[in-house]
């Protein structure tokens, strides 16, 4: 883990409280970007404070990568303004590139270079930064220092990409889908790394389509869909908008026929939403979802209501509400409906 720096204290002190035009590290206003066949970003406003870990969450094609690449100066927006660290890409591009760290979605570093050689190369681009040694340590690649990039696992390659983003000691770090395609263990490993960077006070902007990743890592999250922000807040605030802390999912059958036809049994939803602690009901392909505020009192009443309708449960489970449920409530689709 990197040691605390001066910027750490400032970053933490700045916190999420002191936001505003001057205090924000990243400021996006009225951003639009169209490609030939799609409006990738459709009027986007965002503000990220110093020291914050900010997540852009959304399904593939929501415009996350286009947004982050506009922030990184790789894509020019059609409309709108981008301000980073008080600078913009038109007049301060060279300065900005020195002060931000970038991990792109699908960079393949040369297979025949070693980890250390790759990092030494990237370090040489920056006027100031951390020693290559330290970036290797931060990314926990000490044992792979002399290994060729071609022989690294997916997780190690992602950690190398992150180390390349860190060698310039950036004030602002962009991570575009840092864990996509990794196995669960490698993903948790990377999360620990990001945790360490957060604690060191770096401002981080990451995109992901894993809601658990956004919940675990981000101080604030913007949920994106079709190039717009459809919800913005801390994960807890967003989850609270679902209306209940828990989600009850069930499927029913009429009892006589097999459970195969369960989905077609008719449930009187009004009787369920009449239960005081049930906030909402939706049904998707035979699977009913209720958002519930007091699970312990709600569940017996749900059982009773279904029995009264002559229905038998073929499936029943509950889970704490997540950002996935927020997305489902807002769009009627699942995050990973692709």
């Amino acid at each position, binding site marked *: 883990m990197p040691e605390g720096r001066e910027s750490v204290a400032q970053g933490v002190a700045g916190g999420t409280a002191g936001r505003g035009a001057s205090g924000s590290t990243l400021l996006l206003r009225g951003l639009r970007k169209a490609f030939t066949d799609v409006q990738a970003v459709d009027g986007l406003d965002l503000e990220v404070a110093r020291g914050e870990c900010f997540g852009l969450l959304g399904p593939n094609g929501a415009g996350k990568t286009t947004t982050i690449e506009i922030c*990184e100066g790789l894509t020019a927006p059609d409309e709108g303004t981008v301000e980073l660290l008080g600078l913009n890409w038109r007049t301060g591009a060279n300065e900005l*590139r020195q002060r931000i760290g970038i991990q792109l979605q699908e960079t393949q570093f040369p297979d025949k270079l070693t980890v250390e050689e790759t990092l*030494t*190369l990237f370090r040489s*681009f920056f006027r100031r930064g951390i020693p290559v040694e330290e970036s290797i340590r931060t990314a926990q690649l000490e044992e792979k220092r002399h290994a060729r990039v071609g022989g690294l696992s997916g997780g190690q390659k992602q950690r190398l990409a992150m180390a390349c983003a860190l060698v*310039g000691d950036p004030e602002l770090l962009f991570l575009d889908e840092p864990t996509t395609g990794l196995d669960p263990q490698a993903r948790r490993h990377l999360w620990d790394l990001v945790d360490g960077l957060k604690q060191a006070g770096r401002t981080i902007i990451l995109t992901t389509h894993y809601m658990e990743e956004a919940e675990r890592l981000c101080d604030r999250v913007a949920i994106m869909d079709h190039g717009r922000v459809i919800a913005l807040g801390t994960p807890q605030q967003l989850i609270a908008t679902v209306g209940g802390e828990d989600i009850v999912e069930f499927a029913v059958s009429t009892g006589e026929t097999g459970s195969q036809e369960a989905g077609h049994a008719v449930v009187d939803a009004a009787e369920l939403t009449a239960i005081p602690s049930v906030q909402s009901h939706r049904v998707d392909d035979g699977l009913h979802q209720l958002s519930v505020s007091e699970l312990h009192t709600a569940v017996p009443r749900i059982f009773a209501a279904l029995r009264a309708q002559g229905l038998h449960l073929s499936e029943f489970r509950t889970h704490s509400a997540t950002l996935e449920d927020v997305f489902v409530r807002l769009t009627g689709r699942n995050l990973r409906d692709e």
Partner: protein
Amino acid sequence: MNKLELSSLYQLTLVRFRLVLREPEAIFWIFIFPILLAVGLGIAFRNRPADVLQVGATNPQLTQALAADKGLTAATMDEAAGTHALATGGILLLAIQEPGGVAYKYDDTNPDARSARLLADQAIQAAAGRRDAVHAANRLVHETGSRYIDFVVPGLLGMNLMGSAMWGLGFSIVEARQKKLLKRMVASPMKRWQYLVSFLLSRLAMLVIEVAAFLGFARLAFGVPFRGSLAELGVLCVLTSLAFSALGLLVASRAKTMEAVSGLMNLVMLPMWILSGVFFSASRFPAVIQPVVRALPLTAAIDAMRGNMLQGMNAGQMMAQVGILLAWIVVPFTISLRIFRWR
């Protein structure tokens, strides 16, 4: 880390150098292949001692007379066997004893058979007592510099410089673009000109090894002459390599896939393999297309190298070729910088 290690241009060049040296195929094509080609051509076109021609005769006296000439080997055979041997290429000429003298049976459209006719007649007349009216002596010339291997070595050198510069730049750049590495590099504070210059620097470093190995081999194995200034030859090699690097950069400046860039590269190089006089003189092409042939960078490079190595010409005598090479450096480089796709 010292200052040099912190220099991004040094690091970029070092990386290019490492990547080439760690690619076994590249080593083969750049260093081994031209030497193998020179060896193969050297063997195939070596200057052999003048051929001994096979002839036949219908009686032993004629055979003996023919065998007296060092340029002929003769065998005795009857006319039927001799005719068969003529038809199958076993002999070039059959001398037939006839009542009034001797008859020669041969194919007058075959140059070797015509030589055999001259030699055979001379041998038979001499055996019968003819004396030369004028005394004649032979002074033989086997000069280095006029052999095929001398001609082809500068050609192969030019072809090799073209291939290594174009593949080296074109492939590496398109690969980096395809793997999104180029995009990652331009997102960093790397200076773009340094990225391109690093290719040229590593190319020039490689050039020293490549040219020294190939020409050293040609010198040691075949005694190929270096009649002009070695320094000027070095400058010609650098100009050639820069011209083809610029062309490689141009070819790679937009292509997004390896397939596209290979196609373009072959499209650019193929005409030069044929037209630029690598294996035979470019002056054999019709006068109409000569201006085009002369304007090709490979023709200019090979002409200048042959002028230097074989004729000992100095740079002042090759300004036309040098000018063509310079134009091929400036124009493609300027265009590619304008249209280069950085992502």
